[in-house]
């Protein structure tokens, strides 16, 4: 398939994916907006006022980057896993599989949809946060890079989950038992300096810690983690998950007999 035709195929999948989640915006965009508003009110305003400053910033200012990134993580993941598994379940994934669209374009299309939802929901959460605090961006390019890479990373993770999933239970197990604990323990609500030394070391094994801190640095200029290490780890994960996804797609795992 010529490159120009591949681009048309990519655009088709991307538009289809964006239309899918925007058509059901009450299920996809609204809930994270409400949840995050509650976080801002409860943790930021009510509890945060009792906690005081953290790394020289108010508690509200400190948790805003983490909450934005949490919305991006969960939504890019959820979008791809539910869309891909839904396509498998209804068998309309076969529409793509019988076409000349290369597998990497199928993968990029689904990931593009996940990134789009992550960024839209992240944008909505950012706008809501402006009601509660002033948000000035310390490093725009770094912030944009981390948002993009994180959305790509978790879209890929959702894709792999979707490939292996054999029932609707399987698409909620990873978010419930892996993603949510890692996100909450990834330094959204605290700096790891507050933890005992052993738990600081354990926290370093959590990849989400690197994303949250890199993003927080981009917004307010403070981080528990070396930025170069954080970016290297994120890119490493993106490359590894992309290769794994493409391998599974080429092998036809879960989608071809």
């Amino acid at each position: 398939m010529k490159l120009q035709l591949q681009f048309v195929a990519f655009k088709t999948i991307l538009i289809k994916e964006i239309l899918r989640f925007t058509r059901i915006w009450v299920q996809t965009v609204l809930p994270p907006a409400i949840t995050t508003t509650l976080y801002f009110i409860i943790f930021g305003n009510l509890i945060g006022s009792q906690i005081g400053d953290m790394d020289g910033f108010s508690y509200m200012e400190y948790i805003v980057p983490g909450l934005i990134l949490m919305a991006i993580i969960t939504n890019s993941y959820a979008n791809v896993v539910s869309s891909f598994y839904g396509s498998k379940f209804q068998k309309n994934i076969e529409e793509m599989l019988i076409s000349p669209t290369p597998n990497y374009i199928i993968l990029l299309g689904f990931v593009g949809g996940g990134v789009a939802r992550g960024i839209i929901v992240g944008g909505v959460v950012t706008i809501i946060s402006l009601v509660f605090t002033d948000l000035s961006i310390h490093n725009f390019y770094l912030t944009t890079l981390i948002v993009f890479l994180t959305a790509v990373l978790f879209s890929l993770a959702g894709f792999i989950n979707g490939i292996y999933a054999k029932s609707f239970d399987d698409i909620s197990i990873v978010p419930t038992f892996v993603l949510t604990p890692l996100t909450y323990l990834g330094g959204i609500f605290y700096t790891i300096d507050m933890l005992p030394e052993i738990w600081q070391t354990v926290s370093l094994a959590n990849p989400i810690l690197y994303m949250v801190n890199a993003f927080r640095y981009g917004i307010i200029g403070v981080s528990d983690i070396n930025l170069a290490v954080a970016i290297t780890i994120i890119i490493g994960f993106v490359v590894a998950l992309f290769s794994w996804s493409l391998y599974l797609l080429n092998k036809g795992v879960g989608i071809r007999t």
Partner: protein
Amino acid sequence: MSTALAISNLTKTYDNGFQALKGIDLNVEHGDFFALLGPNGAGKSTAIGIISSLVNKSAGTVKVYGNDLDTELSAVKSYIGLVPQEFNFNIFEPLVEILVNQAGYYGINRREAFEHADVLLHKLGLFDKRREIARNLSGGMKRRLMIARALVHKPQLLILDEPTAGVDIEIRHTMWEFLQKINSEGTTIILTTHYLEEAEKLCKNIAIIDQGRIIENTSMKQLLSQLNAETFILDLQDPLDKAPLANGYPIILKDATTLEVLVDKPQDVNALFTQLSQQNIQVISMRNKMNRLEELFMNLLKQER
């Protein structure tokens, strides 16, 4: 005439050890309307799955318009339009979007895809429903949507896996006319169906597959000429107590006004009517007990087993 599909020694063994295809060979010429028949589980859908790259083959080669499935997959896919047995579109998408998206996967830009989708929806009587989601369609409409979707990229080889299953007779006839038309315009069609009168009416050539092997592969005309006896049902004007005797024609009295008669190929039915008439038996109508192809199909399967 070029070869649309060339299959050689195609074998498929599933992970559980079941051998669905045992080395089949098949050629379908360009412009053909080809029937691939067989009982349930014979291997038809597996063969179609392999040709359309949804099932990985175990051995053998598949070529579509000279392009090898193993080395020129993208070209092979671009030639094929597939109507699968099960509905496999997104039921929450509007019809026109289903078609436009499918076209997009073949690299057709949206403007062109919308134009072609509208033409197909018109031809298949679905244009009024173009903005409705597919879930709201009737069974017959869903079948037609699948045909429209398979044709949206103008394939040269259309594969139909039981396209009229569960469709009422009126819509079935409309679909037959449509398929005959696109075949006459140059689209090669491979059809699997359990309605044998459908295959007899539409197809020029035929292959019968059973237990993973091709047991017959010939022209429809040639196959039908192999039928050496036909069973007819005669409806009578007046009731009878017992089956009448007619020299050379075994007759069974099915009920008081219905006879079943076996007529061998060299025999003619005029002689039968003469003999019945001499016994004052008035026949008011006559029909085949089974479709001719159905009779042959059953005979072939019996021979193989």
